[in-house]
Structure formats: structure tokens, C-alpha cells
């Protein structure tokens, strides 16, 4: 059976990973290539690199490090951050990315999803949405969760899939950073009937949160987290052996 995926997310600024504290045994903790290799060796099923650089120079550095990562890490790589055009897709795919995640850029111009899917295939286009509860519904936020777009999350995800998104990352702003578990309610309400893979993001605090995610919500394909992996609170190796013990299919 297809395995549930565990995906660490690395924020990259000006070519360096925004630091976590506790990378055991690593000296150059902010090198994306070293960290990518570290995670890949630990059993990460995929890596997400999120470019939080604003400058053009930073972008150039980002594509350089991406190339370096792709040269040494042979698992799927997803890139997000600053993707506003098909040219941006082209730029990161040429450096070895396998999938590209769109967020604010797709909200600004939803045709980006369609155009990218047409050119590179749906499997390449990941729609990432930052969602927050508001007025009894679910609202999509842009600009890293700072700006209310007024879009209803259920409608937006549905539209994204129709336009050609091949995978959904649902990040709950309500549970993000709280570390008390994924937002099972939001995931169910927003992505419960989506027919493309769904990646849950926001709220993981411990290994049990992943067990709960995969046992309660069979439609969820992957769990994504950043800080708990970076700070060593959860080891991917231990997490995967625990999931396997609980009968959840994972790649060991």
C-alpha cells in the first residue's frame, strides 16, 4: 500500500536555512544541502524548501543551493515561496525541483495553476493554502497569513484542483505553532472530499499527533512540519517506527 509521507519543511533566507537549535551532530546547521542530506538519511520522504528571501540576489542564491541539494539528495523536492509566474516554475524546476508550491501567486492570478499544470503536468503543481476560521467558515489568507483574501477555503481548494493542482497543502493558521496537534476539523471540512493528495500542515507537537492524523483522517497522505524536526523534538526515524507499530504504512 502507498506509504504515508513525513515531510520536513526548511525555510531558506538568502541561501541559508533559518536556524533550528538542535541539529545533533551537525556543525554547519544552516547549509540547506547538508540539512537536506541529513533529513533524507533520517527517512524524510520528501523535502520542502521555502524561499523567504525578498531580494533578487537572494533568489539567485536560492537556486544555487537548490541545485546543490538536488545534486546530493535523491528524494522528491518541493519548492515554494515567491512563485508568481510560469517563469518562476521554470527557474526552480531547472535546478532540480520536482514540484512547485504556489500560494499568494495563485490567489493573485489563479490562471497560474492552470498554465503551470498545462506546461509541466498536475503532478508538479502543489496548491498551498493558509487557512483560518472566520465568521463561522474557513477563510484563505495570503502573504504568510497576514492578509485576509476574503476567499472561502472550501471553494478555493475545489477551484484549485479543477484548475489543475495535483496536490494540496493545507496549513491551519489556527493550530500553527500551537503544537497541540493537526487541525483535524479543518482538514476534514476543507479537504475531506478532495481527490488529489492532501498534506496536513500546522500544529504537530509530538509523534502522537501524526498517529492521530493518519488514523483519524485516512484521506490525508502526508504530514508536514518544520520546527519539531529542526529542534529535534521529534526524530523522523523514531516517528516512522512508531507509526509502523501502529499499523500505519510508512517507508522505513
Amino acid at each position, binding site marked *: 500500500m*502507498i*506509504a504515508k509521507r513525513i515531510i520536513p519543511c526548511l525555510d531558506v533566507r538568502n541561501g541559508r536555512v533559518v536556524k533550528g537549535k538542535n541539529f545533533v551532530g551537525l556543525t554547519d546547521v544552516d547549509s540547506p544541502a547538508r540539512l537536506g542530506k541529513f533529513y533524507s538519511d533520517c527517512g524524510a520522504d520528501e523535502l520542502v524548501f521555502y524561499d523567504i528571501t525578498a531580494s533578487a540576489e537572494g533568489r539567485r542564491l536560492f537556486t544555487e543551493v537548490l541545485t546543490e541539494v538536488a545534486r546530493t539528495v*535523491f*528524494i*522528491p523536492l518541493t519548492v515554494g515561496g515567491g512563485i508568481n509566474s510560469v517563469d518562476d516554475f521554470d527557474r526552480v*524546476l531547472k535546478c532540480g525541483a520536482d514540484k512547485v508550491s504556489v500560494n499568494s501567486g495563485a490567489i493573485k492570478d489563479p490562471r497560474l495553476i492552470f498554465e503551470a499544470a498545462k506546461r509541466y*503536468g498536475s503532478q508538479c503543481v502543489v496548491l498551498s493554502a493558509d487557512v483560518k476560521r472566520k465568521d463561522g467558515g474557513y477563510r484563505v489568507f495570503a502573504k504568510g497569513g497576514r492578509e485576509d483574501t476574503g476567499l472561502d477555503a472550501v471553494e478555493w481548494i475545489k477551484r484549485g484542483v479543477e484548475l489543475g493542482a495535483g*496536490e494540496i497543502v493545507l496549513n491551519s493558521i489556527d493550530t500553527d505553532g500551537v503544537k497541540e496537534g493537526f487541525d483535524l476539523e479543518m482538514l476534514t471540512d476543507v479537504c475531506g472530499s478532495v481527490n488529489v*493528495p492532501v498534506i496536513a500542515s500546522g500544529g504537530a507537537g509530538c509523534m502522537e499527533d501524526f498517529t492521530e492524523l493518519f488514523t483519524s483522517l485516512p484521506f490525508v497522505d502526508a504530514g508536514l512540519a518544520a520546527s519539531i524536526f529542526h529542534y529535534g523534538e521529534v526524530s523522523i526515524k523514531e516517528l516512522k517506527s512508531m507509526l509502523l507499530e501502529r499499523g500505519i504504512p510508512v517507508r522505513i
Partner: protein
Amino acid sequence: MTAIVDYGVGNLFSLRSSFDAIGVEAVVTSDPAVIEAAERVVLPGVGAFRDAAEKLRTTGLWDVVKNEAAKGKPLLGICLGMQMLLEKSFEFGEYEGLGLIPGSVVPLEGYVPAGLKIPQMGWNALEFKNASGIFKNTKEGEYVYFVHSYYCDCPAEYVTAVTDYGAPVTASVRRGNVYGCQFHPEKSGDVGLAILRAFSEVKE
């Protein structure tokens, strides 16, 4: 030297890098002379069958790949490259393949149980059937990375591994010196590298 056939389909950076990682000389090329001089040939591919087949024809590499395979040179088709080894594809129409392995390319939809997501995207385990050659360094049950909406429907004698996606889905095929894998060895971690290494050692 291993020739990775470049016919303008997809990104070959990872594939090229994965051969570097196992210390095997590989060149990305669209030059028939280089492909003819190579010891082994890799036919990659992503996207739609029709477009890829058309590009392989217009670049003139269709016959080159076919001839090299006929000479007995080891050939490995990856993902859509594997699907092109078959006789025909029913992806958005009906199209002719290289015909190096009997069988046709058909949709997962309607074959795997309803409710399973299509494409199959992610890591799934290998179950061997007459596995040989490229699986020399691989254990049954090891996971490899798949992304596909169509699969190869081949006579059982050519199927060397399947994966369970609600139904047995062809993961790899072989007919003599012609090999194919539906999954991406260049994205399947150490297991994938071991498969590429084994391919780099096959004599036929």
C-alpha cells in the same frame, strides 16, 4: 558510458546527478552518435504520451533507441520512458509505442478501486515477479517513488515487479536487454540508486 536520451521532455538534472552519485559516467545527449557509442541507454520521460512520442520521433531518436535496443544494448525506460517501450498507449487517444515490449498503456482509473487518488503519487513497496537484472541489489518490500496516472498492462512474463495500489500495478518490466521502471529511481533514495547501479552492471 551511459547515454541519457534528451528529447526535450522533462528535467534530467536529478537523473544525471544520480549517476554521478554512484560513480557511473552518464551524459545527457540528443546526439545519435553518442547514443550509438554508449554502453547503455536510459530513456526518461514525463508528461503526456502523445507529446513525448512525437518529440522522440521529430528529434529522430525514435529509430536510434529502437535500433540500439535491437542490437542488444541494455536500455532502461523510466516512468513515461517505460510506457513508451510498449506497443501502444491509450492516454487521450491511441498512440503507437516503440513496441519493444508487448502490452499497452492504460489508465489506473477503473483498474484500481474507486476512491484511491489518481495519480498514484508517493512511495510504494516493490513485490517481485521474476525479478532479475536491475533488482540485483534490491530487497522485496523496499519502497520506491511513483507518480503516474497510467500503467503498463503487459503479459505476466514481462512483468518483473508490481506494487499494490488497491490492485497489483506494474512497477517494472523486462524483455531481454530492455528494462523499464514505472517509478523514479532517481527520486527513490538509496533504493533507487541501487537499482541504477545494478542497471549499470547488466551485461545485456
